[in-house]
């Protein structure tokens, strides 16, 4: 921390950004205006502040004018703050004493017909930025040790792949499976698309590899009971065969997969002649299919009001099983009643083409006129013929969705991650961070996130392992210093009401043995909710303190109230 009494000496660098800013408003005049603001001792305008020349000008400014605060008025902190923070840091100014003023993305680009108003807006924004900068305080990033171990929850195909990948990279890895053997859904499948490989073969292979790694510890009949701590330092308690094991873990991968849906009440499901695709796979494994007239019904219990989503694997499962049935008995009749058929990619579409060649009959139905399954025939309305078809059957196979596990919620609460509306785990960002959770050090792969097939489960297993290894391949982790903070001089303000504990989404706030509030900096993400909630204004949100934000408000409002 720098000396708090130190007088702010602010330098303002106004960027022209070629003509992006300078083409609309007078950056020289802005720099001149900035000179009139309190605590500003140096200002300059640059053609491109982010260029080598621009950065050198900042460094020279700091050196020549002994600046202890730097402001750049230019594009947006979302893209360029790291660059300028780094620049001032190299010149000995704490990176948190840099402040960004956005006069391009949120100003000149949006008010192109109003140069005078945009100029006034830029003046206001710089004035607000200067007011905040004067109140900024130096902060240190937090460095914590990272334990180079990984925990993979779920021993299905995705979890096994991820665990194997991490173990191959040399990390001590713990694979926790709730059942008494590894395999997950793979254990009960018959053949796999898109190469018709026997599921058992892939499973045996994976199990052999997983079992042969010394640094990969397999815990079967085991369940995660509790998780505490934070990235690099999770304390996990696992119950294995009734015994409690405590593990110190650096990163956690969630690969808990899905549950099966039992379609009781749908199309006369009875588990005997009206069964699910999954039950059909078991029958195929046992060579137990005698039926000649087989009808499959798609989207049973999915894409409806209760479960709005498409389970994504059922179309391919039906096509694959239809081909297996045809191969086993070319004389059998196989019909597939579908709403939409989903066969993306070259390999998958090929199954559809082959199924048609093999004589599988495809009949579209609409959810408004669902097929009705009777004793030994199925009635389905065909909208193209405009009439009802009667199809005899001795085996009716229902394609039911994969659904989220009932205990996802308990696990989600343990690791502080969100679930989406259907109870699946929700990643940090669907495109930018698909294998991450918003919680640092926790990752996701496989069907726990969304029903995916074996191919995708494997890809995601590798991807999550790669993401996880970016953390545990380092000895230490650097965490943002702009966190919530209860300074000693504010401790007397704290009434112990615990509201901050309740609103913190990351369990970063707790009470110690002396009944005092303790904020674990490394768990805090700096959202600031606790500060805005604290009943006695004891908590400070660093880098976004009340004083800093109020100074911006007053600078715009023109007076202190």
């Amino acid at each position, binding site marked *: 921390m720098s000396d708090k009494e130190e007088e702010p000496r602010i330098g303002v660098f106004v960027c022209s950004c070629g003509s992006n800013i300078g083409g609309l408003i007078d950056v020289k005049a802005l720099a001149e205006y900035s000179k009139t603001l309190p605590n500003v001792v140096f200002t300059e305008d640059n053609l491109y502040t982010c260029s080598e020349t621009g950065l050198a000008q900042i460094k020279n400014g700091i050196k020549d004018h002994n600046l202890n605060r730097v402001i750049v008025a230019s594009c947006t902190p979302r893209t360029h703050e790291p660059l300028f923070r780094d620049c001032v840091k190299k010149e000995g100014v704490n990176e948190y004493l840099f402040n960004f003023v956005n006069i391009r993305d949120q100003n000149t680009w949006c008010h192109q017909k109003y140069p005078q108003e*945009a100029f006034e807006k830029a003046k206001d924004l710089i004035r607000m930025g200067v007011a905040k900068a004067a109140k900024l305080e130096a902060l240190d990033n937090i460095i914590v040790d990272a334990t180079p171990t990984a925990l993979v929850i779920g021993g299905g195909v995705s979890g096994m792949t991820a665990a194997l990948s991490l173990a191959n990279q040399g990390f001590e890895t713990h694979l926790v499976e709730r059942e008494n053997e590894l395999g997950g859904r793979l254990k009960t499948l018959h053949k796999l698309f898109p190469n018709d490989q026997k599921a058992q073969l892939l499973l045996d292979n994976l199990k052999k590899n997983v079992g042969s790694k010394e640094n990969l510890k397999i815990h079967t009949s085991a369940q995660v009971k509790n998780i505490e701590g934070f990235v690099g330092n999770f304390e996990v308690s696992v119950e294995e065969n009734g015994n409690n094991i405590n593990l110190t873990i650096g990163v956690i991968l969630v690969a808990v997969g899905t549950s099966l849906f039992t379609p009781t009440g749908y199309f006369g499901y009875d588990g005997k002649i009206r069964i699910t695709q999954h039950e059909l796979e078991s029958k195929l494994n046992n060579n137990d299919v005698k039926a000649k007239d087989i009808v499959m019904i798609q989207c049973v219990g999915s894409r409806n009001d209760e479960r709005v989503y498409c389970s994504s694997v059922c179309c391919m499962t039906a096509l694959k099983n239809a081909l297996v049935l045809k191969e086993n008995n070319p004389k059998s009749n196989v019909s597939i009643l579908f709403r939409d058929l989903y066969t993306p990619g070259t390999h998958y579409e090929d199954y559809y083409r082959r199924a048609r060649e093999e004589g599988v009959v495809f009949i579209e139905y609409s959810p408004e006129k669902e097929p009705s399954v009777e004793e030994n025939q199925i009635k389905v309305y065909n909208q193209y013929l405009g009439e009802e078809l009667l199809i005899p059957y001795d085996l009716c196979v229902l394609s039911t969705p994969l659904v989220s596990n009932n205990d996802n919620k308990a696990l989600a609460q343990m690791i502080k991650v969100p679930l989406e509306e259907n109870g699946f785990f929700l990643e940090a960002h669907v495109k930018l961070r698909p294998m991450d959770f918003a919680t640092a050090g926790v990752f996701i792969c496989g069907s726990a996130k969304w029903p995916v097939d074996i191919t995708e489960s494997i890809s995601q297993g590798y991807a999550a392992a790669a993401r996880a290894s970016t953390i545990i391949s380092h000895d230490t982790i650097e965490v943002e210093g702009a966190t919530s903070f209860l300074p000693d001089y504010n401790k007397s303000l704290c009434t112990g009401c615990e*509201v901050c504990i309740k609103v913190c989404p990351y369990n970063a706030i707790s009470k110690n043995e002396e009944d005092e509030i303790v904020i674990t900096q490394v768990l805090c993400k700096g959202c600031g909710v606790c500060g*805005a909630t604290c009943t006695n204004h004891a908590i400070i949100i660093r880098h976004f303190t009340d004083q800093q934000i109020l100074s911006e408000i007053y600078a715009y409002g023109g007076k202190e109230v």
Partner: protein
Amino acid sequence: MTFEPKILGFLCNWCSYAGADLAGVSRIQYPPNMRVIRVMCSGRVDPVFIFKALLTGIDGVFVLGCHPGDCHYLEGNYEAEKKFIMVQKFLKIVDFDKRIRLDWVSASEGARFAQVVTEFIESIREQGPSPLSGENIDQELFNNLKAMENSVSSDRIRALVGRQRRITEVENEYGEKVPIDEYNAIFDGAIHDEFVRQRILLSLSTKVLSVKDLAAELKLDPSEILENMLTLKSRGDIDYQSIDGNTPLYMRI
């Protein structure tokens, strides 16, 4: 000269600030009336900030966060919403609640950002300049808003709003869940009482007054004033200063 509204926007870093940047990148045009304060989460917006901004004479305050369910910090925007609704309830007392707005803009909604900002600016333009802007401000309104600022700064109101989600949506320490209607009734009562109390304190901070004087000044029933004065006295905030004939005069401690 036509009235150009002076608007302050609090934007969360992850969604609405990114949406505002995207509006720029897409060169979507909107009126230049808003100045932005970037916060990491809309949940950082302390209710005090909104009152402070209005007290300086800013014509309208906009709080923008991530869509429900999309908050980068999981639930910060829900907390922001609860606080915002509370501020609205206070401002409704003096018919000033239309000068603030809360909305959601995602990082991909540049056009939506421009649209909601334009709409808000136009709504403020229609309402005209804030009576707290310029040289001759409406002192009574200023005092009312100041009393509200003090109310949202008080531990009672902050505790109520801070616990709201827990006790109405999850459950409290004793495993009880309070129905939202019941909660609102308690909360509305607390808002009204706290406002009256803070208003009394504000009046007594510059002069010594009787219950009757205060009732006249605040345009409230003397019995309600008396009731709240007794609470303030028991809290040690006010006390008798002297007796004027038969009428006790109060002062702020």
